[in-house]
């Protein structure tokens, strides 16, 4: 997930873009430790794992959704993307949606 922090640097302070991490952890203490360690610059929320996977229809964890201004899901990326040029890919998706 460090790639999200890198990608976010470009949008920090942009009123038209928001990042939200949603944890499906059950172990709160473990999640707290992780968040303390990672110090994410954007908000983190929680959802029940079964709920989230059913409602958002994903199998892969993590899964990333890119949602446009009208609240429509435009891209869904399953699995870990933290390899290679992933911050560039993250901002590519966001820029696509911003430019419309």
């Amino acid at each position, binding site marked *: 997930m460090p790639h999200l922090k890198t990608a976010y640097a470009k949008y920090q302070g942009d009123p038209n873009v*928001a990042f939200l991490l949603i944890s499906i952890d059950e172990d709160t203490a473990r999640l707290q430790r992780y968040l303390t360690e990672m110090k994410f610059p954007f908000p983190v929320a929680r959802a029940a794992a079964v709920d989230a*996977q059913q409602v*958002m229809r994903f199998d892969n964890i993590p899964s990333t*959704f890119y*949602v*446009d201004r009208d609240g*429509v*899901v435009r891209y869904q990326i399953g699995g870990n993307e933290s390899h290679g040029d992933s911050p560039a890919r993250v901002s590519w998706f966001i820029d696509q949606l911003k430019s419309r």
Partner: protein
Amino acid sequence: MHRRRFAMALAIVTAAASLSAQTAAREQLVRGRSLWDQRLSKSAIAALEAAARDRTTAAEAHEMLGRIYIFKGWQQENVFPGWHDEPSYRARALAELRAAVAADPARASAQEALHLAEGFAAAEKVDPAPPRDEVKALDAKLESYRSAASAPITDIFAAIEARAKAQADPAPYFTGAQLLIDRGELDRAIAMAERGAAASDRFIDENLSAYQMSGKSQGSYARGRATAADLIGWALFLKKDDAAAAAKLEEAARLSQSQDFVNQFHLGELARAQNAPERAREHYLNALSLSGGPPPLRQRATQALSAMPRRASDASFDAWLETELSRRRDERKAAALKSLVDRSLPKLTLTTVDGRPYDTSSLRGKVLLLNFFASW
């Protein structure tokens, strides 16, 4: 004496002002008409609305607006990809044409258009507008260069420009880019595809529907950009710049959600050239599992696959291919049914990390990245 001279001067000034307003209105009218010929609706309507405010051009401008709204209301179904009739324009068509007739009761063409609109309003079904002869002829001219290998390149450029001037959609740029690629004019092809991408965005902006479902225009933008990215990527591949080619071809794949035959074929060719047979195989199979694509390219993809080594236990090539393709088609169908892409974000109950209700109101209207994760 003084007073009279002043009055006369005033009369001249007023006359000059109204004359220049008339000239401006006439210019707007001409501009609006030419913009509409190119199917640049938004700008055409703005110009014509300005012309409709001047008494001297009101009848013509209202008639022109009425004719545009007739097209939008009844006749634009599938005239371009993603275009649909917009019934909300029907009442506006009638209102504009009535305003045209009121402004100039003797105007025969306005009365004719009003009758047409009233007829459409009463009809069960109205056929979409046929392609215009002028545009059809220019398209045919451009297409003819596919088989005219010795034609001078300046003729191709002239044909592209002529077609682009007649109608503002991106098709001539994309056709032109392909023609230039076929002739090995790779840098010019890349520049042409870039013009196509810009034309595509503008054409969509100009013709956004008033009540379009948000998904529609997004898809149209992506289609134009994907076509441009694939053409550019393929030209870069032919220039032997594999790294830049990969970036563009993969961008096209993201935009088309890996569902474009030609793009998947191009990615297969790139992977083969990069000596990555597994990746090449995936792309060729993806391509063939999609419909569309010109038969010669389908044949080349099949040949490339048959030349690749397979495991000894595999059945005959044809049987293997059929199994692979139907598996991909089934997977794609299942994924499409399941995916949230192009659907509204569903309601999901969120809490803060310490368990209080999470307020999502600040996220509304923003481009949003949602990442579901677990720390394990």
